[in-house]
């Protein structure tokens, strides 16, 4: 698969939020500011890149040769948790200014990263392709989160039905957006890259 195909696939066609439904954070749902949306995207891009690399290493060096692929889930989970922890420590140490806008130890990002890594490993990509895929997933996540958080900012001031205020409307909005994103399907991918 070409680099462009991987980018389009992971950013648009198999968008983390809209087709895997991963990475929406429980307490507030969609982020309440664009800054935070982009921070989440950056966090996911970094984490998914590193984790896909790590997962590739673990698979090729340990799990597959030893016939331990049933241990993939715990290994990936720990890999991602550990990486997130390390990234946070590193940021605290070297760039504390960035801390408020990125968010490493977050369930949403971790679940999304796990999803991305699982897809990458299921699709048997190479290490380099995995890196690009992780980056693309982060980009797609940032894009969708930015759009959704702008929609959220707009809906926040409207008098919406009380039962639907907040999370329910965010989900319905995400659903409508997911419908629109179906424009980016496999046929689209094939035509763009083929034509």
């Amino acid at each position, binding site marked *: 698969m070409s680099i462009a195909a991987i980018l389009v696939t992971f950013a648009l066609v198999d968008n983390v939020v809209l087709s895997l439904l991963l990475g929406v954070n429980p307490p507030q749902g969609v982020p309440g*500011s*664009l*800054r935070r949306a982009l921070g989440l995207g950056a966090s996911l891009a970094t984490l998914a890149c590193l984790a896909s690399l790590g997962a590739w290493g673990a698979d090729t060096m340990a799990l597959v040769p030893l016939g331990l692929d049933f241990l993939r889930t715990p290994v990936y989970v720990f890999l991602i948790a550990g990486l997130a922890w390390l990234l946070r420590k590193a940021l605290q140490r070297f760039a504390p200014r960035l801390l408020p806008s990125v968010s490493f130890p977050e369930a949403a990002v971790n679940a999304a990263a796990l999803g991305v890594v699982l897809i990458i490993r299921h699709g048997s990509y190479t290490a380099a392709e995995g890196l690009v895929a992780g980056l693309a997933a982060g980009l797609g996540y940032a894009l969708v989160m*930015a*759009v959704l958080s*702008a*929609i959220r*900012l*707009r*809906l926040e001031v*409207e*008098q*919406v*039905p009380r039962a*639907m205020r907040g999370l329910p*409307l965010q989900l*319905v*909005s995400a659903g*409508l*957006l997911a*419908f*629109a*994103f*179906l*424009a*980016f*399907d496999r*046929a*689209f991918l094939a*035509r*763009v890259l083929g*034509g």
Partner: protein
Amino acid sequence: MSDPAQGGQARLLLSPAPHIKAASSTVGLAWLVVASLLPALAWGIALFGIAAVRVCAVGLAAAVAAEALTTVPFKRFTLGDGSAVLTGLIVGMFLPAGVSLVVPAAASFFAIVVVKQTFGGLGRNWMNPAVGGVLFALLSWNASMARWIPLASGAAVPPLDALRSALAAGRSVPGGPLAVLNAAGYPFSGADASVLGWINGHLLGFLHVGLPTGAFDVVSGMVVGPIGAVSAPLLLAGAAFLLARGVIRWEIPVAYLAVFAVLAFALGGPATGRGWLTGEALFQLLSGTLLLGAFFAATDPVTSPLSRAGRWAYGTALGILTFVMRYFGSVGDGVVVSLALGNALVPLIDIAALGALAPSHARKAG
């Protein structure tokens, strides 16, 4: 003495400033748009017959029923504002006449209930209800959405679809989309032959150029297509009426169509088997639901940006999206899905253009 306080006259009004108002009013805007759509709808009904009436009637009735069901129990009476009727009408006009009647009903219902009333009704939805409803139909009933009613000339699919399948089959010939269609044996009407024969013979003959067969059909709307989208002249007339009355703003359709035409001309050539800078912009502009979408769905004030700069950006984004979706996408002719994506971008465009919608983007005082 005509002192009102002592003259026993009616008491003076005590309303807050400002005490004068601009002449514009939202009352009846939606009804004006409905009126402007009727000629194009009538054309579609004339072409496709009773089936078209059925589809539009079901779409309209479902929209009105859905609006009534979601508002009347809450003591809100909004049917008079015309927005539900407009939504139902546009949904019907986007559909082919041969579609199963479940489709207009479900699309209108989805449009009103999910896309609009879930968000609190008119003015609060971020996606145009009709666009959402038609998108839902396109995703749900793909096969039914391609059930066209053939014309007397024998044409059974829209020229755009015929072009697509001809190109997909590798039957590209030099000379543009109509040449491809003619080579593929697409039937055009008898009127087309006689009108073009006259034009080519009497007006253009001495210039040694000629309009390709099918040009008259495509321009006049004697083609297969969605009920309300076939007649370009009547759609343009409706749009001109709305523009003249100040109901819609011109920035969005102008940017939309211009960007799309430029892209179709510059980059659309290779897709139709020709070189760069040779794309057939006019054929693409007049085909499919582009004019209907650009003038009647993209201009919905609720789902378009607040500022002038934002409207230019929105129109441009729509042009790009529609180009990409029409040439590479597979959801309908790419207009509806582009409008849906464009609607989703509007809140972002507003933030960028106004810089005042998010607290972190609040303008500095001064």
